[in-house]
């Protein structure tokens, strides 16, 4: 043996032994080795280079030869190796696999084209599954997975506060924002945003509402967002506490400033004051704040929000923090516990002895927390459909394989190599998976755009849904999974096709296991279909219950709109009261209007001011008192929305004009303070700095905060006493209300509000928004359940057809021996019935377990709902029986003589 250094380069030897056909490998490698040894005696390096060169030459030559004459060479070698098992040799003969696989692929294409019904079914089934999977991927990717479009977004957090009875509130007081900034080493920065509001833009003669928000001067830098034009807010911009300068959105720049480069420096007249534009924000900029963040992507104008380090009376500022380098959320939350303890000690006026806790949540996780249950349920359904589609296609493929087993066996016996057989079957799987991937991709991209157009409110970043390269990667990935599911197992079987046994007519044990596998696959599909049908039923019942729920007010036939009023024109609050009464009278005089009134927050607006209340036996309110929602009200409102008065009266115009300290409260507040007594005429201590209020009326609780349940007690206070603006007019009308919005706008202008009317929409639109996530989930899961049921039925049908076909000979003999049609039918039905009997109980069990995912979505329906379980079982059983009956029917009615003759 030559010393190691005299050995040819190992990688080259390895490569050559892979490239050379097996039958030449030994001799050529030996010859090369011999020549190498001679050369290496002179120069190691040159010998090695020479060896590599030779390997290259053989590689090139080998390729040329294979293209020129693949079969002749192989035949020669086979002849030479007579006496050894040719199949075994074929398996060893790696060098040939590429070519034979390619030939298999070509053959597979031909076969699929010939058997187009099978190909079309497979493509459709897999395609629907892959399409659904892609939709799921899109939502998962865009809504739940992709980091927010900010610099180092995973270090951004949103601060929530627990203060006495208020829990998980997304707003801080300005002084607390300053406290966060001063916290040593925890944060790089803390910046605040206020909820969106509508400002009035004066353009020439008219007014126009623009959606606005305010951010503290460092917000954009904290997020790592730079304007595309002009500059960001600077630290000096909030020195003037009104924050004169503004930033505008890209869309606003295009629509209102003509997209002009000199837009920066122009001045806009907003809410009666001139404001210079200092910058234009990037096109895709949106301030993504967590649930309750209330700053939409449509904000057009950004004001400066100044932070007063002494203001500790209004918890309304959404606060974004960036964690300092190396700090974790756990660490900063610990630091915030220290801050809370200190604040409670230092400022008892603001906090009393309430519990105070600040918690920083990951901004992205907080943003998606609210929609996670619905999305998870939808994703789970999609996975189920995908599984059913895969199971279905695998079972179809197996059936086809079974029918072709004889064909494959004959080819195998004639000497077709294992790789060629595998190539044909894998080739079919591959082609079908690719076609299905394409179909699924097309279906899904269409569906994704359709879904995006639905734009359900409350789901963050829904408008980002779309198709991009990651979508393509996902499509390929799913197609690959489909390929593995549908092509892999049949190919494995094909590779082991034992030719002679089959040809000799020996029963293949694999045949039995294949039938069992197919039945199991169909059983799994049926079980999963039961799960989805059950989910759809539970959600459907929830939606129906929710639609039928007694809200305690009448959402139909009423139009709402925000009517801001320039408050500068009034000398006294009473003047404003008179103005509001007159405006209400003007609106009520519009033809078709039956009544009108105004409130600060219309039903299901999603927010209302919250503060404590108490009996008058306490000195002052604190954070441990019970909380109520306070509404600034113009008389006529409660009557207009149609609430039911238990006792007492509605608010009167005199209450408004004279600023009387009176209130209408709901029954729960009355019951809390004056249990079992008549509350009318009694006085209680109210929040928001209001005087003690006398109850003049008690109403049944209307569900204006949450359609699903009663939330907090409610207090309706005259709009001049509790001044929350803008006021929303609610106008009840007969007829269809067409043109009513314009009419109210005209009356408001004529009355001299000096501001633009906006947000004109029907009252029941808010109800629709509030239930949109539920309805979207319902729609999605219903569609998925339907598809799954159809696929499962199809799977069962094809298996039963196949079983009936296989058994046709036996059944012909039975029939010839005198079996009646009924007996034959029963015999054929038994197979399908066994599958159904196995699958449905399993499905019901899975449904009950899986329904936990729906727990937070459903309304007033148990996730163990017996009726839905029963219906799901009956539907699945019905579908199953039909899919079993049809093939059995056709098998039982076949003419036995025909069958036997055809069988030979």
């Amino acid at each position, binding site marked *: 043996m030559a010393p190691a250094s005299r050995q040819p380069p190992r990688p080259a030897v390895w490569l050559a032994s892979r490239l050379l056909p097996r039958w030449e490998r*030994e001799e050529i490698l030996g010859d090369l080795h011999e020549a190498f040894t001679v050369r290496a005696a002179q120069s190691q390096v040159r010998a090695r280079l020479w060896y590599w060169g030779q390997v290259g030459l053989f590689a090139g*030559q080998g390729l040329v030869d294979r293209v020129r004459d693949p079969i002749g060479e192989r035949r*020669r070698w086979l002849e030479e190796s007579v006496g050894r098992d040719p199949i075994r040799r074929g398996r060893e003969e790696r060098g040939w696999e590429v070519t034979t696989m390619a030939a298999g692929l070509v053959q597979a294409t031909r076969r699929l084209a010939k058997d187009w019904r099978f190909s079309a079914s497979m493509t459709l089934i897999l395609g629907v599954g892959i399409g659904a999977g892609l939709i799921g991927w899109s939502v998962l990717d865009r809504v739940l997975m992709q980091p927010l479009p900010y610099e180092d977004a995973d270090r951004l957090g949103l601060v929530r506060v627990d203060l006495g009875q208020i829990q998980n509130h997304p707003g801080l007081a300005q002084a607390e924002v300053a406290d966060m900034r001063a916290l040593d080493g925890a944060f790089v920065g803390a910046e605040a945003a206020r909820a969106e509001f509508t400002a009035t833009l004066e353009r020439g003669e008219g007014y126009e509402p623009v959606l606005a928000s305010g951010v503290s001067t460092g917000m954009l830098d904290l997020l790592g967002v730079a304007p595309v034009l002009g500059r960001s807010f600077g630290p000096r911009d909030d020195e003037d506490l009104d924050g004169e300068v503004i930033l505008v959105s890209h869309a606003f720049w295009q629509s209102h400033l003509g997209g002009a480069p000199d837009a920066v420096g122009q001045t806009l007249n907003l809410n009666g004051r001139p404001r210079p534009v200092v910058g234009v924000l990037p096109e895709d900029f949106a301030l993504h704040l967590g649930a309750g963040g209330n700053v939409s992507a449509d904000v057009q104008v950004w004001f400066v929000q100044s932070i007063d380090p002494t203001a500790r009376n209004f918890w309304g500022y959404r606060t974004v923090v960036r964690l300092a380098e190396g700090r974790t959320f756990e660490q900063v939350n610990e630091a915030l516990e220290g801050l809370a303890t200190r604040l409670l000690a230092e400022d008892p006026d603001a906090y009393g002895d309430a519990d105070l806790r600040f918690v920083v949540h990951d901004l992205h996780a907080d943003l998606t927390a609210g929609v996670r249950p619905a999305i998870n349920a939808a994703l789970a359904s999609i996975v189920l459909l995908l599984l059913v589609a895969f199971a279905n296609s695998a079972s179809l493929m197996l059936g086809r394989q079974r029918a072709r087993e004889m064909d494959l066996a004959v080819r195998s016996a004639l000497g077709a190599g294992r790789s060629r057989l595998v190539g044909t079957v894998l080739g079919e799987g591959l082609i079908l998976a690719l076609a299905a991937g394409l179909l699924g991709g097309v279906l899904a991209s269409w569906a994704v755009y359709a879904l995006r157009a639905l734009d359900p409110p409350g789901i963050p970043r829904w408008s980002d849904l779309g198709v991009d390269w990651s979508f393509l990667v996902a499509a390929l990935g799913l197609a690959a999974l489909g390929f593995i599911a549908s092509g892999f197992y049949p190919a494995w079987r094909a590779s082991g096709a034992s030719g002679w046994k089959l040809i000799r007519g020996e029963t293949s044990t694999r045949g039995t296991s294949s039938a069992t596998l197919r039945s199991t696959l169909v059983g799994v599909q049926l079980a999963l279909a039961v799960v989805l049908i059950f989910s759809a039923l539970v959600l459907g019942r929830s939606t129906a219950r929710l639609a039928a729920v007694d809200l305690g007010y009448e959402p139909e036939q009423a139009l709402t709109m925000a009517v801001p009023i320039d408050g500068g024109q009034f000398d006294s609050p009473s003047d404003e009261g008179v103005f509001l009464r007159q405006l209400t009278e003007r609106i009520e005089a519009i033809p078709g209007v039956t009544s009108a009134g105004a409130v600060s927050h219309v039903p299901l607006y999603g927010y209302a001011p919250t503060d404590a209340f108490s009996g008058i036996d306490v000195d002052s309110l604190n954070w441990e008192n019970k909380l109520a929602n306070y509404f600034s009200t113009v008389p006529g409102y409660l009557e207009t929305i149609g609430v039911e008065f238990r006792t007492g009266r509605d608010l009167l115009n005199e209450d408004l004009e004279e600023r009387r300290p009176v209130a209408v409260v709901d029954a729960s507040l009355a019951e809390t303070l004056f249990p079992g007594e008549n509350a009318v005429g009694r006085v209680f201590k109210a929040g928001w700095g209001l005087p003690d209020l006398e109850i003049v009326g008690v109403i049944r609780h209307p569900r204006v905060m949450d359609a699903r349940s009663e939330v907090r007690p409610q207090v309706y206070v005259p709009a001049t006493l509790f001044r929350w603006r803008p006021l929303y007019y609610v106008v009840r009308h007969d007829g269809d209300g067409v043109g009513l919005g314009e009419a109210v706008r005209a009356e408001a202008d004529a009355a001299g509000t000096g501001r633009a009317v906006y947000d004109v929409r029907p009252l029941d639109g808010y109800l629709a928004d509030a239930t949109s996530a539920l309805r979207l989930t319902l729609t999605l899961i219903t569609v998925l359940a339907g598809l799954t049921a159809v696929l499962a039925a199809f799977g069962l049908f094809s298996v039963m057809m196949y079983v009936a076909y296989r058994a046709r000979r036996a059944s012909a003999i039975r029939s010839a021996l005198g079996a009646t049609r009924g007996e034959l039918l029963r015999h054929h039905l038994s197979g399908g019935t066994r599958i159904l009997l196995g699958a449905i109980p399993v499905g019901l069990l899975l449904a009950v377990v899986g329904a936990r995912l729906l727990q937070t979505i459903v309304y007033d329906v148990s996730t163990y709902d017996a009726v839905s379980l029963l219906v799901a079982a009956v539907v699945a059983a019905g579908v199953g029986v039909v899919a079993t009956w049809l093939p059995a029917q056709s098998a039982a009615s076949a003419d036995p003589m025909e069958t036997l003759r055809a069988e030979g």
Partner: protein
Amino acid sequence: MIYGVGVVMGHETVGEFEHLVLLAILRLSDEAYGASVFEELTGHTNRPILRPAVYNSLRRLEAKGLVRSELGDPTPERGGRAKRFVQLTAGGMSVLHDSRRTLLSLWDGVATEIDGATEG
């Protein structure tokens, strides 16, 4: 009989290079295998010869029944790999025999002129 660049014998066509390979095998007698055939050819021709071409020719000649081969024993200097010895078959011998006779009869009388022309 000369046909193009090949020699036609019975049903089998032998290319020029294959012809050379057959001759090399003849010269090497018992010691003919891939590497030695290659060395023999490079020693007697002025043109570059590619190793794979030699093996290809050997395969083709074997397919045509002009040579036969058998594996020898593995040896250490070959990295423990066997040689494939080749021998001419009767068919191979007769191809060489016929081509030699044809060539000699055609060269008869012109050889000295060529020699003179190239040397002069």
